[in-house]
């Protein structure tokens, strides 16, 4: 699954907290993961689970919001958290690039699409405007914008939603990053376009050999793309495993809920969706014990007191889960649910 | 914030000089003027100030919050306008800076000859006086005749012609052309023929700028415009002229409306024909600005005077720290309360006396700045006007209601009882219409009057409006039947008691609009006495005759007087300003010099 040696990205015990007037929001509450070169990690969770904050923190984008950040984010062995802003800027958009959720608000409405990509190129490459423009047209072609030589001078509002996201991807690819972080890259798009964008990302990964961290609430998205999946809940990773393992034998009741909400081609879509009852917990005062216990159908009295750690599943060292239910019990319930 | 402290003759009507001043606690260690008026020591007055500072030449900067009204000598009728006309125009007669009683020959070469019947005035004019460019030629009697005649031109509309010159034969039907009342037997003689023996008032009025010569060949094309544009194309006879272009145009050259006026020497002026010393080379008038800023600039600066009334705070500052730069001019007009003599409660003389007795005149004057700039008014001919002493001087005629400058409620009650109100308070049903003027200190004074009326038992409808509105829509319109006008005042056109008393108190002068007999005073006996006094000749005789009328007005309490004004003016320390007593102490540019 990954190349030998040091992984491309290693996140260690990452905490991100935002001081607010109501109290400290523990958006990310101690997460660890690795991404190997050319590999794809899917991070899945509901909104408010900390998955986006965690992803943005890799690029230091939460710094401007006054976040308190601890832990380590090692990119090719360098701790990004310790880097001063100017150093981090050299990495942003260059070695690590990011694609955001809503392409219509993520492009600057007052600048031409091409100019925005040119700016990304020239931020890291010492090339002339003309060269950067050529590169931009090439990139637009690469992401499947028809007639890129003409569309390069369009404004964002002249693009469709899907084209905007392609443009965002083109911008992210401008400097051939080693890692692409895609935060809900398809959520704002309609279904057919979603599939095209995912296919594009997958094609580019293979073509350019970059690693991808794809952040989504939709297990269906990562099921197709990711090599490994991390499930986040209330600022923590509650389960992490290779994609096949997680899809076939998920260990956490929350993962079960997510999996059951994947639409499949068989059967009417609406019936298939089984959302998890309840709402995400407060990140200022999270529930005691297992943070998931208020929504867990299998909760036991002691689960409200004991906070489970992320433990390897027996016989599967790369499959780890944070659940207090006994292994056999979990397997039995999942079998029943499937 | 921006108040016009001195209303213009036209905007305020009737030479109503709103002399606004605040309390300046004056401890007057008296230096006495000619009228016994006290002015605090160390302060100049037009009566006492040196007439020369010594230096010849230089430029005087004149700061002036208010704009001029009219530059045309046929239209000028405002004390600020007179500063320009005095320096640029030569009427037949004019006052020297220190007198308000005896005019001297100016364009005229000698005193006028009045025929025994008082109906013919013969005046000789000087030889060798020339108009400024572009006219350049010598002035003749025809130019004086044209100047007066054009006063009747509807496009000129001289504001005082009717009052003073209507007795000229044929003036009634004149429309600007020659009429029989003015003849010019030779180039240097002009004869005025009157239908009635009114020679004295006509002669008095010849100090006004209407009598300054106007060259017909130059002015008539402008006088044909409706209204005349001669004021925009002036020629001068005095030592100075408004800067003009080759065609004589001053508008936009020597005068920029609301902005500036520039006086330069008149190259055709011949000093040997004139008593004006004309020390200065140039006078730059800068119009606009904040009065407190202007005042400080003048007091702390050099080569400057302020034209209009300084701000209250500036007078105080000048009095305390720049006393030698302060000039106080007595005889600058008066303020009184006009009450409706014709109808309503004040048609009863005892009610009028009750208000006079009740009024705290000292409090009223304190709102205006106290003794530094006011005196308690006790009768109607004001200081420096002939007849002032004969009418009672500062103390005023003996009358119990005139004896209490701080007011006497008991005495007031006595007069209310005499008027038929047994309780000593008004018990009728009428609500009095009281219309005063906004702005300090008029508003404060009006408030005191309103309170006094209430204390007398009256109910009032009390309104304050802009002073021009007060005159043009309320107090000057008899049909409005305003009972009490607490903010009116009068400044005479020249030093003659008729000019003080006739228009505001003679019943024949009541007109349906633009009326200046605000109290509708129409006492047959007083009217008769005034008509007779109009014909009296000689300063002394006129003073006696009009002083007697003044005493009658007091006896009838025709109006309730409260303030005789003294006008403050300021100059920079290196300016030897000379003020014109007859023009509320305004600086006379043709006498003022730099030190």
């Amino acid at each position, binding site marked *: 699954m990954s190349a030998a040696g040091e992984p491309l990205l290693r996140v260690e015990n990452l905490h991100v907290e935002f001081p607010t007037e109501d109290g400290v929001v523990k958006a990310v509450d101690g997460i660890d993961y690795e991404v190997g070169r050319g590999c794809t990690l899917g991070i899945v969770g509901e909104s408010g689970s900390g998955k986006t904050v965690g992803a943005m923190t890799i690029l230091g984008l939460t710094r401007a919001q006054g976040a308190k950040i601890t832990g380590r984010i090692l990119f090719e062995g360098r701790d990004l958290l310790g880097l001063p802003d100017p150093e981090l*800027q050299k990495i942003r958009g260059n070695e690590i690039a990011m694609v955001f959720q809503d392409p219509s608000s993520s492009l600057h409405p007052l600048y031409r699409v091409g100019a925005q990509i040119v700016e990304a190129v020239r931020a890291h490459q010492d090339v002339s405007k003309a060269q950067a423009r050529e590169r931009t047209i090439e990139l637009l072609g690469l992401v499947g914008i028809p007639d890129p030589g003409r569309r390069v001078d369009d404004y964002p509002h002249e693009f469709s939603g899907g084209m905007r996201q392609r443009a965002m991807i083109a911008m992210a690819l401008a400097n051939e990053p080693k890692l692409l972080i895609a935060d809900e890259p398809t959520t704002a798009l309609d279904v057919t376009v979603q599939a095209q964008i995912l296919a594009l990302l997958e094609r580019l990964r293979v073509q350019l050999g970059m690693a991808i961290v794809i952040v989504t609430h939709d297990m269906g998205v990562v099921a197709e793309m990711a090599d490994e999946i991390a499930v986040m809940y209330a600022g923590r990773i509650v389960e992490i495993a290779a994609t096949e393992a997680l899809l076939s034998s998920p260990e956490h009741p929350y993962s079960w809920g997510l999996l059951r909400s994947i639409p499949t081609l068989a059967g009417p879509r609406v019936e298939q969706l089984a959302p998890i009852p309840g709402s995400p917990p407060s990140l200022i005062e999270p529930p005691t014990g297992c943070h998931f216990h208020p929504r867990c159908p299998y909760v036991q009295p002691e689960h409200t007191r004991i906070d489970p750690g992320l433990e390897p599943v027996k016989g599967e060292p790369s499959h780890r889960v944070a659940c207090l239910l006994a292994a056999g019990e979990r397997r039995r319930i999942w079998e029943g649910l499937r | 914030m921006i108040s016009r402290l001195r209303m213009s003759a036209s905007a305020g009507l009737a030479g109503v000089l709103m002399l606004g001043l605040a309390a300046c606690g004056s401890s007057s260690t008296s230096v006495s003027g000619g009228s016994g008026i006290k002015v605090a020591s160390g302060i100049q007055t037009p009566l006492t100030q040196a007439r020369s500072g010594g230096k010849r030449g230089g430029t005087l900067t004149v700061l002036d919050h208010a704009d001029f009204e009219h530059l045309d000598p046929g239209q000028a009728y405002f004390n600020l306008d007179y500063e320009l006309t005095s320096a640029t125009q030569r009427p037949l007669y004019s006052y020297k800076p220190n007198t308000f009683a005896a005019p001297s020959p100016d364009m005229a070469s000698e005193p006028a000859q009045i025929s025994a019947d008082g109906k013919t005035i013969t005046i000789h004019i000087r030889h060798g006086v020339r108009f400024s460019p572009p006219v350049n030629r010598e002035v003749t009697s025809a130019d004086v005749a044209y100047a007066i005649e054009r006063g009747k031109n509807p496009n000129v509309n001289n504001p005082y012609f009717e009052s003073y010159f209507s007795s000229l034969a044929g003036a009634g039907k004149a429309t600007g052309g020659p009429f029989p009342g003015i003849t010019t037997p030779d180039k240097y003689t002009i004869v005025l023929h009157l239908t009635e023996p009114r020679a004295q008032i006509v002669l008095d009025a010849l100090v006004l700028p209407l009598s300054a010569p106007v060259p017909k060949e130059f002015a008539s094309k402008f006088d044909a415009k409706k*209204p005349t544009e001669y004021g925009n194309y002036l020629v001068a006879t005095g030592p100075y002229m408004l800067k003009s272009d080759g065609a004589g145009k001053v508008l936009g050259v020597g005068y920029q*409306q609301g902005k500036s006026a520039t006086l330069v020497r008149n190259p055709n002026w011949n000093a040997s024909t004139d008593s004006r010393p004309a020390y200065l080379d140039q006078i730059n008038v800068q119009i*606009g600005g*904040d009065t407190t*800023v202007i005042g400080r600039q003048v007091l702390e600066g050099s080569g400057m005077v302020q034209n209009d009334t300084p701000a209250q705070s500036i007078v105080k500052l000048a009095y305390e720290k720049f006393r030698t730069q302060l000039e106080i001019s007595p005889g600058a007009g008066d303020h009184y309360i006009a009450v409706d003599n014709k109808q309503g409660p004040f048609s009863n003389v005892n009610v009028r006396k009750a208000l006079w007795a009740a009024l705290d005149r000292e409090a009223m004057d304190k709102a205006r700045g106290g003794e530094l700039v006011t005196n308690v008014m006790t009768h109607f001919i004001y200081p420096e006007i002939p007849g002032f002493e004969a009418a009672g001087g500062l103390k005023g005629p003996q009358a119990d209601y005139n004896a209490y400058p701080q007011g006497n409620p008991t005495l007031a009650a006595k007069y209310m009882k005499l008027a038929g109100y047994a309780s000593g308070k008004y018990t009728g049903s009428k609500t009095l219409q009281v219309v005063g003027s906004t702005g300090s200190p008029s508003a404060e004074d009006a408030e005191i009057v309103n309170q006094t009326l209430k204390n007398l038992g009256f109910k009032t409808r009390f309104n304050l409006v802009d002073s021009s509105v007060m005159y*043009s829509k309320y107090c000057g319109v008899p049909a409005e039947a305003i009972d009490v006008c607490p903010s009116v005042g009068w400044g005479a056109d020249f030093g003659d008691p008729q000019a003080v008393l006739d*228009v505001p108190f003679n019943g024949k002068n009541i007109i349906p*609009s633009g009326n200046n007999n605000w109290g509708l005073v129409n006492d047959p006996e007083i009217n008769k006495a005034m008509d007779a006094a109009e014909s009296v000749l000689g300063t002394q005789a006129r003073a006696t005759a009009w002083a007697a009328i003044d005493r009658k007005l007091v006896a009838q309490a025709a109006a309730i007087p409260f303030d005789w004004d003294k006008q403050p003016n300021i100059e920079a320390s290196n300016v030897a300003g000379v003020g014109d007593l007859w023009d509320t102490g305004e600086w006379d540019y043709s006498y003022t010099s730099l030190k």
Partner: protein
Amino acid sequence: MTRYIIRRILWGVLLLIAVTALTFVLFRILPTGDPARLRAGRVASPQVVAAIRHDLGLDKSLFAQFWIYMKEVFLHFNLGFSYYSSAPVRGLIANRLPATLSLVLGASIVWLAVGLPVGIVSALRRRTLSDRVSMGTALVFVSAPEYWLGLIALYLFAADIGKVKVFPGAGSYVGLTSSPWKWFSSLLLPWLVLAAGSAAIYARLMRGSLSETMEEDYIRTARAKGLSERRVVMRHGVRAAINPIVTILALDIATLLGSAVLVETVFDIPGIGRLNYDAITHSDFPIVQGTVLLGALFIVVANILVDIAYAYLDPRVRYS
């Protein structure tokens, strides 16, 4: 676009006609002095007043007066003549306009130069000490009456009456063409005073607008590209935050052109505002009408300019 602009101009002309009519009517309803009487002066007889009234055309029916006036203004661009000096109103306005333009445009440069940077810094350092201090100071300047501020400035810094004699004081204004340096130095204090309140307002506007903009997703994108924070703020944040301010700026300048009377008075600058104010106190209707019309014209033109500017500033805006 062109058709839209033409339509806007036509509407503007209609608006000007409406404003003219309104001023015309208001001036005659409100209890101001009677111009004929004011002009006639002291003891004028009713005949004299009637003659003046006739000369000034005030004896014609209101509608006839209005019709004559409108015809002159809109067909011949003739604003009439001052009741007082008979000077053509157009000439008076032309004479006063340079001073007001100098004052207002200069002040607007000052307030932008001060207000925008302060607003930007405040927006980027929200809730820090420097933000609180600058916004607090702004509040003081916003609430300080400019007339009072002008007096204080003169008493402190004027070369003639100030404590520290630095700047030329009141009444020192000269035209740009007669001496550029004197023009500049005489306007420094007025600029600062007139700009003070607006600088504060614009600082607050900029702070608000930029704070909002900096929350936008495209700012995050710009950061993610690896741009320097300076470039993120200036090129992406400020560029977008400035748009709403342009609208306000144009209208503020247009409004001030007709109403800088307080600063014009305190510094004795012969401008349009003072011309208008003096005319009102004199009931000099043609000047009042002319200056009001000019003020309305400024506003109409500013509105059209804003619309045009918007089309250039924001590619999403298209007029049809």
